[in-house]
């Protein structure tokens, strides 16, 4: 029976381990993505965008975005900031949002700040979240 030295065994073992060990990790990721239209666009940290955004999909903002925004889903992460006229079916805020906001579901996280003229259908604010300005509820349906 041959006993491999450390150097000799490494090549074979890495090749063999890649198959079974990587399977459970990738399995979790695949479950959430169902099609290309669900891929979110991302404005990453340190990226600043000024202008108009129109999309039927979702956008994650980790950087800065100001202007007119029309989306179906907007996610503002803790480092993200959005300012301007925002229309979106769902807005999830963990960072900052200001301006004229019109949305269906508005979810404000515990460290988020939302200010301005806000119109919503459903509102959730986690403890510690901040909302300021003129707030109005639209009838749901």
């Amino acid at each position, binding site marked *: 029976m041959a006993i491999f030295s450390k150097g000799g065994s490494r090549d074979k073992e890495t090749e063999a381990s890649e198959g079974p060990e990587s399977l459970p990790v990738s399995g979790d990721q695949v479950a959430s993505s169902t099609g290309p239209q669900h891929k979110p666009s991302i404005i990453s940290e340190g990226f600043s965008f000024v202008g108009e955004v129109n999309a039927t999909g979702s956008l994650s903002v980790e950087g800065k975005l100001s202007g007119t925004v029309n989306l179906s889903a907007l996610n503002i992460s803790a480092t993200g900031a959005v300012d301007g006229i925002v229309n979106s079916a769902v807005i999830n805020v963990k960072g900052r949002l200001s301006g004229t906001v019109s949305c269906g579901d508005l979810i404000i996280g515990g460290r988020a700040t939302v200010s301005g003229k806000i119109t919503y259908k459903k509102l959730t604010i986690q*403890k510690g979240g901040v909302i300021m300005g003129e707030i109005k509820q639209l009838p749901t349906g």
Partner: protein
Amino acid sequence: MSDTVVQSGCLFVGEGVTVKGNFSVPNIATVAGILEGDISAHQVNISETGFIKGSVRAEVVHVLGELHDSLVANKSLFIRSTGSVIGDVKYVEIEIEKNGVLQGQIEKINRVESEQAQPMEPFTPTPDEV
């Protein structure tokens, strides 16, 4: 309601009851009926059947029913899923459950030690009663 066992300094407006006037409540005010007027309390609980129209000042406010006109929550404001707050709102800390309603001019304030009713000493039952 089990949370109103301590009755000293408390106000309870039962379902079907309508009261009007200005109220100063050192401890907890629980409203299950209709209250019209100004109320200042340490804590205000508005039950699902409760309705307040007027100005409310309190440290802690729990809303399961409806509150109209104006509210100052000097510490925490909780709006549950059945609750709605409409009017001028000032709060230090806020939490809203999904489907809770918040409408009007909303402002976050820093906590101020004001002239309002101070909370009473915690109620401790004397041991010889047991």
